[in-house]
């Protein structure tokens, strides 16, 4: 230390704002937060839940809408699907002791012709299907599945591709050949090691040659399940419609808890394919009115996948608004929680503020210090929230079948919001700290 007296008139050094100074402020802020860890953790809890709920909510919403779109893709946005359903009154009477020989209901070939005639210009294709619940055998292995008797255009109209081999041909339909295409999942169950193509499977005494396997469909398929069926598309077997009619007849016998019951259903399902999706909803209404005219009983159902999607989207929007509001409120509460603690901290550290002011800290230095601390607190909460918010959807997907999608921008957005909340709720306490009179602050006990 030199002993020469300081120049009383020396120019005052510059105390400009630099990046390295900000870095030091941040480092000191981290230290100050770290020095009372538990309190800091409790302070940011609100922020943690706010941020994690934003991320989790968006992930669930994205997953749901992706799933809905995927279903639409499978069902076809250009399609109207009509289905046979067992009318309630038959269901009732079949339970009573009186039992008719065979109940007759559902869509008929005549219905399809009528629709074809009426809407000749608008419709591209109609794909009828019979769906029969049966056990399918290969050697000693058995799978209970839906046997779908249909026509060659089924894969095209339902956006469902053959993965291995081929679908059946027009001539196989004409000849009522016993050929079949297996759903992916059941092919794995029946043929764990062997190549299914070329082998034969047995269904109630008849043998069918396997000519193809459908692609895997990874999504659960609400709306795809048929009357009385809970099987997914993967657990289906496709055979020519003519073969289905011929082998199984029109009257099906179903095992129920009360014994047997028989029913006569010509078609279980038909997919009406339009060239585009513009008129699909109105066309669905026309189809419905045609069927209503022809059916006395309430034994059919018209489903327009696009309308279902629109409904799903509308309810998803409401869901998002509600959850968004909840997330917003929890972020607000989180911010207020942090502000509250920061105000207490400012009062608690009045003396420290006085000391810093005496040692040359300007008002903006004090503002920066407390603002940085609040932002750090808030951002720490945001970071923990991001981790939690990404963990929650992953475990939802793990423990349930619900699909969740975390878009890369959602953690970024949620984290930025936590930073912004830090700024907004940090300004007031920081101003309070900076407004203090140095002398008063130094005298504070």
């Amino acid at each position, binding site marked *: 230390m030199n002993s020469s*007296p300081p120049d*009383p008139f020396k120019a005052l050094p510059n105390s400009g704002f630099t990046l*390295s*100074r900000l870095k030091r402020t941040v480092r000191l802020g981290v*230290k100050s937060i770290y020095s009372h860890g538990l309190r800091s953790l409790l302070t940011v809890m609100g922020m943690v839940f706010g941020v994690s709920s934003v991320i989790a909510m968006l992930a669930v919403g994205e997953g749901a809408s992706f799933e809905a779109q995927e279903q639409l893709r499978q069902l076809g946005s250009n399609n109207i699907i009509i289905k046979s359903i067992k009318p309630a009154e038959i269901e009732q009477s079949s339970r009573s002791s009186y039992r008719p020989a065979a109940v007759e209901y559902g869509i008929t070939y005549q219905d399809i012709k009528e629709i074809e005639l009426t809407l000749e210009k608008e419709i591209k294709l109609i794909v009828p299907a019979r769906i029969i619940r049966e056990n399918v055998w290969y050697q000693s292995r058995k799978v209970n599945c839906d046997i779908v008797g249909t026509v060659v255009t089924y894969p095209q109209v339902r956006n469902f591709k053959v993965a291995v081999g081929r679908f059946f041909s027009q001539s196989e339909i004409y000849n009522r050949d016993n050929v079949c295409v297996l759903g992916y999942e059941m092919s794995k169950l029946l043929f764990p090691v062997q190549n299914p193509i070329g082998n034969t499977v047995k269904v109630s005494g008849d043998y069918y040659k396997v000519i193809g396997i459908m692609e895997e469909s990874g999504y659960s398929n609400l709306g795809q399940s048929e009357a009385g069926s809970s099987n997914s598309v993967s657990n289906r077997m496709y055979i020519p419609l003519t073969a289905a009619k011929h082998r199984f007849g029109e009257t099906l016998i179903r095992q129920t808890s009360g014994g047997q019951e028989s029913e006569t259903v010509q078609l279980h399902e038909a997919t009406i394919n339009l060239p585009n999706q513009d008129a699909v909803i109105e066309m669905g209404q026309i189809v419905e009115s045609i069927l209503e005219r022809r059916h006395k009983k309430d034994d059919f159902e018209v489903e327009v996948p696009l309308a279902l999607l629109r409904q799903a989207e509308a309810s998803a929007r409401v869901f998002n608004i509600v959850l968004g509001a909840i997330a917003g409120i929890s972020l607000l509460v989180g911010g207020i929680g942090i502000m509250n603690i920061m105000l207490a901290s400012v009062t608690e550290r009045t003396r420290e503020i006085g000391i810093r002011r005496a040692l040359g*800290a300007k*008002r903006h230095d004090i503002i920066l210090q407390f603002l940085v601390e609040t932002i750090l607190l808030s951002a720490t909460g945001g970071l923990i929230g991001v981790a939690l918010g990404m963990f929650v959807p992953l475990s939802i997907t793990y423990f349930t079948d619900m699909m969740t999608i975390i878009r890369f921008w959602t953690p970024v957005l949620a984290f930025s919001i936590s930073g912004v909340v830090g700024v907004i709720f940090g300004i007031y306490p920081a101003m309070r700290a900076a407004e203090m009179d140095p002398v008063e602050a130094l005298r504070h006990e």
Partner: protein
Amino acid sequence: MANEIIAEIKDVYKTYQMGEVTVEALRGVDINFHQGDYISIMGPSGCGKSTLMNVLGCLDRPSKGQYILGKDDVSKLEDDALSQIRGARLGFIFQSYNLIQQLTVAENIELPLYYQGYPESTSREKAIELANRVGLGDRIHHKPFELSGGQQQRVAIARALSNDPLIILADEPTGNLDSKSGAEILNLFDELHQQGKTLIMVTHSDELAERSKRCVRLRDGKVESDELVTA
């Protein structure tokens, strides 16, 4: 007093308005401070010593009158400019040490330099040098609560020296210390005086005042006497 004048207060008044009552803490004080002065300020409790120190320390503005520090009249300056002057030209030593509890010894010492915008490497070097000088070179990473009162006050002195101030202001620096620690502090003050620093110290003790070179006595906000101390 051959040395030049580095600070001057001219007819300084300080009044506090307490509702209806007006308290006049300083009532026309004139004092000149010379380079290298070692001044003790004495007087009964409530006579305005701390108020005067606050004005001298640019923590407070006089209600009336002039305070010239260096070449500048600082009595009318804005808050930011006063902060700048405190950080660049003044050093403070308080009765209750006033160290920042969550910072280490070194961080406390370098705080004035931090606010002056010095890079950390420079300020840390200076802090270590000053810690050694006050005999606490081995304690730079300790927190204040791990130190005795005397040690804390020595940290405060090191801090007051870090910005190489024009004037060092000490308000009852030994008020909280036992006589042994107090003596250590005063020995440090003597050293600083010998090195040419300008020291202004408030004290209640005649014994301490006798170690200074000049004694200003206040009474009721006015200078009662201002004379050289004869050893």
